[in-house]
């Protein structure tokens, strides 16, 4: 069976974390946002991260992407231990390997769509041309619009274009469709899938929408700062076929 085949041939790990904890505050107001998480992200896979609000999804993703550091635990990128990396090394890691898509887009308002993508492209030696990255997400016609002139879904797709322009090995997306309607959400997911298929980019997607799990290779569910369950899909459902 497919499940067995997938399990028998684990793909190479790009990120692997052991015993991650993240504690905010102290004493009575202490919050354990992560409470002993073991986690891997494999090359080329699409991973859906589900879980109720406050369960620690964003915290985990931020740590994986080197935007934040865990309280305890280790995180490896290949042979490099990111939990021991200096700030400069983390910056390098983000620059060379990670593309982020944030829930609130976080585009630079004073730059056009093309320039926002270029902002990332400027950082690497052989980037994807911004126009091409925007074409991948279906925005080839809105190159010179400023964020304020774009809809939420369009802004999110610009954010994806910006994330992939560096040709990163992994794409970390925090609720990329959270603020979007079904049709637009599907467009964004199509874009992510297209990137994954064309470039083999490992893609982690946080979502509240369990349905999106169907397009992933693997679905991880979090609860109270722990991984509550993990499921491997036998096959991926294309976004167009998702029942929103």
């Amino acid at each position, binding site marked *: 069976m497919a499940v067995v085949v997938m399990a028998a041939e684990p793909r190479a790990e790009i990120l692997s974390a052991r015993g991650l904890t993240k504690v905010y505050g102290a004493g009575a107001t202490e919050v354990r946002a992560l409470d002993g998480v073991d986690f891997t992200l494999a090359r080329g896979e699409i991973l859906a991260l589900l879980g109720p609000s406050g369960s620690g999804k964003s915290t985990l993703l931020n740590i994986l992407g080197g935007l934040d550091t865990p309280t305890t635990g280790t995180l490896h990128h290949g042979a490099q231990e990111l939990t021991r990396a200096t700030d400069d090394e983390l910056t390098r890691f983000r620059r*060379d390997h990670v593309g982020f898509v944030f829930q609130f887009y976080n585009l*630079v308002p004073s730059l056009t769509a093309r320039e926002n993508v270029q902002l*990332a492209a400027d950082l690497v030696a052989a980037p994807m041309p911004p126009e091409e990255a925007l074409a991948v997400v279906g925005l080839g016609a809105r190159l010179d619009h400023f964020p304020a002139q774009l809809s939420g879904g369009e802004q999110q797709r610009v954010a994806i274009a910006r994330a992939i322009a560096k040709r990163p090995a992994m794409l970390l997306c925090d609720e990329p469709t959270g603020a979007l309607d079904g049709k637009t959400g599907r467009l964004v997911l199509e874009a992510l899938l297209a990137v994954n298929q064309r470039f083999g980019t490992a893609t982690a997607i946080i979502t509240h929408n369990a349905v999106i799990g169907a397009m992933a290779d693997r679905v991880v569910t979090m609860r109270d700062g722990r991984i509550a369950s993990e499921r491997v899909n036998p096959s991926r459902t294309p976004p167009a076929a998702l029942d929103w």
Partner: protein
Amino acid sequence: MRAIDRKLLRDLGRMRGQVITIALVLAAGVAATVTLTGTYRALGAARDDYYAAQDFPDLFVHVERAPDAVAARLATIPGVATVTPRLVEPLAAWMPGQARPATGTALSLPDDGSLRGLVLRLGRGPDPTRADEVVVLDSFATAHHLAPDDRLEVVMAGRRHRLRVTGTVLSPEYVFPVAAGVVNPSGVVVVWMPRPALAARTGADGSWNDATFTLVRGADQRAVIAAIDRALEPWGGLGAYGRDQQLSHRFVSQELEQLEVLATRVPVVFLLVAAFLLNVVLGRLIQLQREQLAVLRALGYTKAAIARHVGAFAAVIVLGGGAVGVAGGVALGRAMTQLYVRFFHFPELTFHLEADLIGLALAVSAAATLAGALAAMRRVLRLVPAEAMRTPSPARYRKGVLGLRPVARLAGPLGRMIVRELERKPLAMALSVVGVGFALAIVIIGRFSRDSLDVLLDDVMARSMREDVAVVLAKPAPIGELGWFAHAPGVLAAEPAHAVPVRLTGPRGYRDVVVTGLRPGDHLRQVLDGRGARVPIPRDGLLVSEILARRLGLAVGDRVRVERRDGDHRQLVLPIAATVDDRLGMQAYLELDALAAALGEAPQLSEVLMTIDHRQRDRLMATLAEVPAVVQVIEVSSFRDAFAAQSGDSMTFFTWLVVSLGVVIAVGVVYNNARVALSERARDLATLRVLGYRRGEVAVVLIGQLAIQVAVAVPIGLWLGWALASALMSASDPEQYRFPVVISAQTYGFAALVIGGAALATAALVRRRLDRLDLNDALKARD
């Protein structure tokens, strides 16, 4: 172009209002530095160069009459480099259209026939073979349109003389033309002619009555003076004195001293205030960009790259503001220097831009700006990027830090928003308040010198010199002569004063001053203390200015050595009966009879103080002009006017300069505060609008915040203004007269109005922006 550079340009463009006003704050600081320091240096250099080029004498002495041979002996005194004996004769000239004659001096030229020590402006020097040729002081010639070949009629040694002008000259002894209490160039006449010609007209052949000295470097001036005085005692020497007693030099130096205080202190205040404001305002501006900077970090931009980005933003402000400041400073400096050209007559007085000045001003402002920008950036970068992007999760509002909770409860939801915002960022709010306060303080600094001058004039001129006219006699006369003056036409009351030039010596040094003898019951001359209260004139000892006692190292009860300096070199010792913290400095008083007794003479008068019937003024002047014993008639009102004009002109300029720069700073601060607040709260305010609040109500939240800040800032600023003004004044301790630290209600009011005006204009602008606030944009895009 790299996208990050494009972002820089766009940000500069989008925030141009803020960028420009911040740059102007910086420009104001730089301009103040360049203007004041540059003008001070220009004036100092003009004086020093002039003195050096013309060998301005180090010592001066007047004698009754001395034969030429004595001069040669003076030259052998150790420390004396050169001696120039000369003839000096008082003279008066009735010029067309003048109510009073111009008074002044005729001086002999060096015997070698040169114009040594003078700078020829027009024409040529007098021909030694012609008895009537003279050169005239340029300021007088200019005031009366005298040109070479014109005639000049003067009264000298009791006779009329028709002279022919061959040229006009400048003299370092008359940089500031002053004679007999007259400071108006048209009223001060000085002519130079060959010694034989002057001697023939005054009957002083083969002798001299005045000499100037230059000293060798490092000479002991005190010892030389003592030696000169000893040598000249048989010839009626009136006591040698240094440059510090030379009238023109004293005026110029005093102005320079005041300018030095302004030039060294005011720019420091300006630059520090500007630095503080740049720091605060730019810091908040950068803070606004925290999410964008976090995104750059998330994308993989290094801290160094981000620092360069922020640094470039600040650099544009520094360079732009610096360039405007330097250009403005040069223009203002030229104007201010030009002002001095009107009453200081140097051969050359030009404002020069000096590289070290620009460097200094720019370094300070650049350091301030970059420090502000980079400190804010460091705060942003210290956050892990995840943290920086955490907004728009609600900001953490604290409750009740400032104990404003009851207020908040009363104020309704909008009022509560204002109060909470103030409470949430007490530090940012406090800094803004202090910033506005400083701007207000600068406006006060600009204007308060005017108040001080008014008080000084009021104290000194109006309350302590209550006479209308002071008549100065050539020689002290018996007190009985007062009767004649009391009955002169138009005189309402006349009181005597006996001014005796003396040298007071104490343990810490000596000062040449005048002891004024006054009668106890008289009221025209009054001695006032610092608070304006009248101090009685003692009879058992001297009443001296506190600063004079301090400089001499004496206190009440001590005895002071008094040496007459009016030809008679008799020495006596008098106790100090009292000191007075007066505004004039360097004064000494004694009862008229007691003074006479101490001097071993019958009571005398050397001045007559009178109040007059102004309708008969011209008649009185004409009468006095006929009296040979009268050498000067000083009208207090004209003295006051002249004083006000001289001090007033530079002060008006200074006031105008500092007030304008203060206004620039005030507007810059208030405007930026409001703009930053607007950016910070655009989302909240848009949300309120969406909830259904009307525009005016929404504006209240922001404008209320602004109003509270300004309201708190005003009293703080008024206090800061007073404190800075005191600090400025304490820097100078001039012996001549001391400006009181007085700030009038008008100045306080004016400063508060300026700030209030800036706040209102800003409020109107904010209101307009709020009205145009695009709800969608505000809720969608954050910047």
